[in-house]
């Protein structure tokens, strides 16, 4: 007999399975959607690479990180990641000195350009990384420093 609890457990398992083979439909984007908790808790690049199960990153001029030189307010810092290289699977945005390094990760399909941007919080001036995970296993990155200034009256 199926109890309600079983049904929930079952659907979560199915969702996880679908997610693992990239078949998760939007309608099912719920508790079961893939989320790499370990990656979002990583404090540094080594931990992040381990949590993601990917190769060590190498700097590349083919990857671009966008962001302001100076942010007037660390609560909202516009940042972007892009690359002109073909075969990108994922783009990551990292803030080196945040409590957890990984801010956002985007899965890139053939239907979109490898060019995403968002806004992130920065506790202090820090390097911001754009990381591209390539189909061939290469992990490429670009970085730039963003200064966060102290604004207002400070009161």
């Amino acid at each position, binding site marked *: 007999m199926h109890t309600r609890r079983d049904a929930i457990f079952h659907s979560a398992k199915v969702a996880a399975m679908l997610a693992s083979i990239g078949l998760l439909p939007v309608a099912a984007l719920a508790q079961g959607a893939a989320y790499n908790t370990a990656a979002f808790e990583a404090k540094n690049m080594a931990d992040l690479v381990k949590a993601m199960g990917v190769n060590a990153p190498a700097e590349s001029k083919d990857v671009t990180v966008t962001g302001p030189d100076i942010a007037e307010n660390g609560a909202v810092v516009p940042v972007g990641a892009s690359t002109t290289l073909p075969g990108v699977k994922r783009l990551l945005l990292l803030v080196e000195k945040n409590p957890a390094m*990984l*801010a956002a*990760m985007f899965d890139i399909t053939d239907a979109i*350009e490898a060019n995403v*941007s968002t*806004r992130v919080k920065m506790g202090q001036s820090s390097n911001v990384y754009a990381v591209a995970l390539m189909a061939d296993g290469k992990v490429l990155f670009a970085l730039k420093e963003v200064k966060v200034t102290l604004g207002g009256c400070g009161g």
Partner: protein
Amino acid sequence: MADPMRIRAQAAGDKTTVRVLMGHEMETGQRKDSAGKVIPAWYIRNVSAQLNGKEVMTAQWGPAVSKNPFFQFVVKGAKAGDKVTISWVDNKGDKRTDEATVS
């Protein structure tokens, strides 16, 4: 219930720029209220984008994404009249789906 998103999808040639604003606290779980109590983490974790019902992008976010998140991406081959759908789910299981027409 969560507030509606604001989605703009503008086509230029064969590329469509999609800009999304979401209403969400994106609480980090590291801040304290005036009584010194930690405000629990509350943030969007999964985002998905569809073009005419076909998934074109998914994303995972951490609490470092700013409050009332904005994000932008570029869809290839979309044209005016196409439907762009964005969905998100947060760490409490709250979710929201909104749709916009490419112009």
